[in-house]
């Protein structure tokens, strides 16, 4: 009984993770702007990795493999948003701006009249 429950939870988690990853990939290829594509990459880095590793952990049971999977999940959970923030910071420093701030060099919304 418990085995069937664990198998079902593992399969459900793998399916949810695969769905999140497909949604993130579709967002990366379909969204119109660099600054909106970052959100899709964030979905892959947090929800996709979390659910897939959770499903694999439920398959492995209490072994060393679960520890390695947990290590991978924690590491990607820390470094994924860090890398995304570094990419966003580099793009901002290279004068790349979202649509709403196009032509505004300061990059802040409250810096006066918006040039059109």
């Amino acid at each position, binding site marked *: 009984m418990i085995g069937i429950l664990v198998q079902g939870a593992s399969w459900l988690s793998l399916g949810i993770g695969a769905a999140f990853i497909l949604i993130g990939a579709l967002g990366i290829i379909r969204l119109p702007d*660099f600054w909106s594509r970052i959100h899709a990459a964030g979905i892959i880095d947090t929800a996709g990795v979390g659910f897939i590793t959770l499903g694999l952990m439920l398959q492995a049971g209490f072994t060393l493999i679960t520890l390695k999977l947990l290590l991978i999940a924690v590491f990607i959970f820390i470094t994924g948003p860090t*890398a995304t923030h570094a990419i966003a910071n580099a793009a901002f420093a290279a004068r790349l701006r979202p649509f709403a701030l196009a032509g505004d060099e300061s990059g802040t919304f409250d810096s006066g009249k918006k040039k059109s």
Partner: protein
Amino acid sequence: MNMFAAACAALFVAMLLILIRSFMGPTLYDRVLAVNAFGTLTVLLIGTMGFLTGRPDFLDIALLYALINFIGTIAALKFFRYRSLGKAAPKGAARQEDA
């Protein structure tokens, strides 16, 4: 066993889409973002393929790949910002952009 194959197929499709974005990305940062996501999906694919073939011993390689992916992304960003990896940043090169 069948669910691992489905997850692998989803990972393959997602990697294909992200590879397309990394080839046709209009700016450099689109490409770096796509390559970073591709590396993350490669880590997941290595782990899931290990479970699919019944030998989940490849997780050490997946962990190593996660480490190298992060370092590689930061190194690529640093190279394209300062045009150099070894030397320190030139004086006042990018100070005014840092928040």
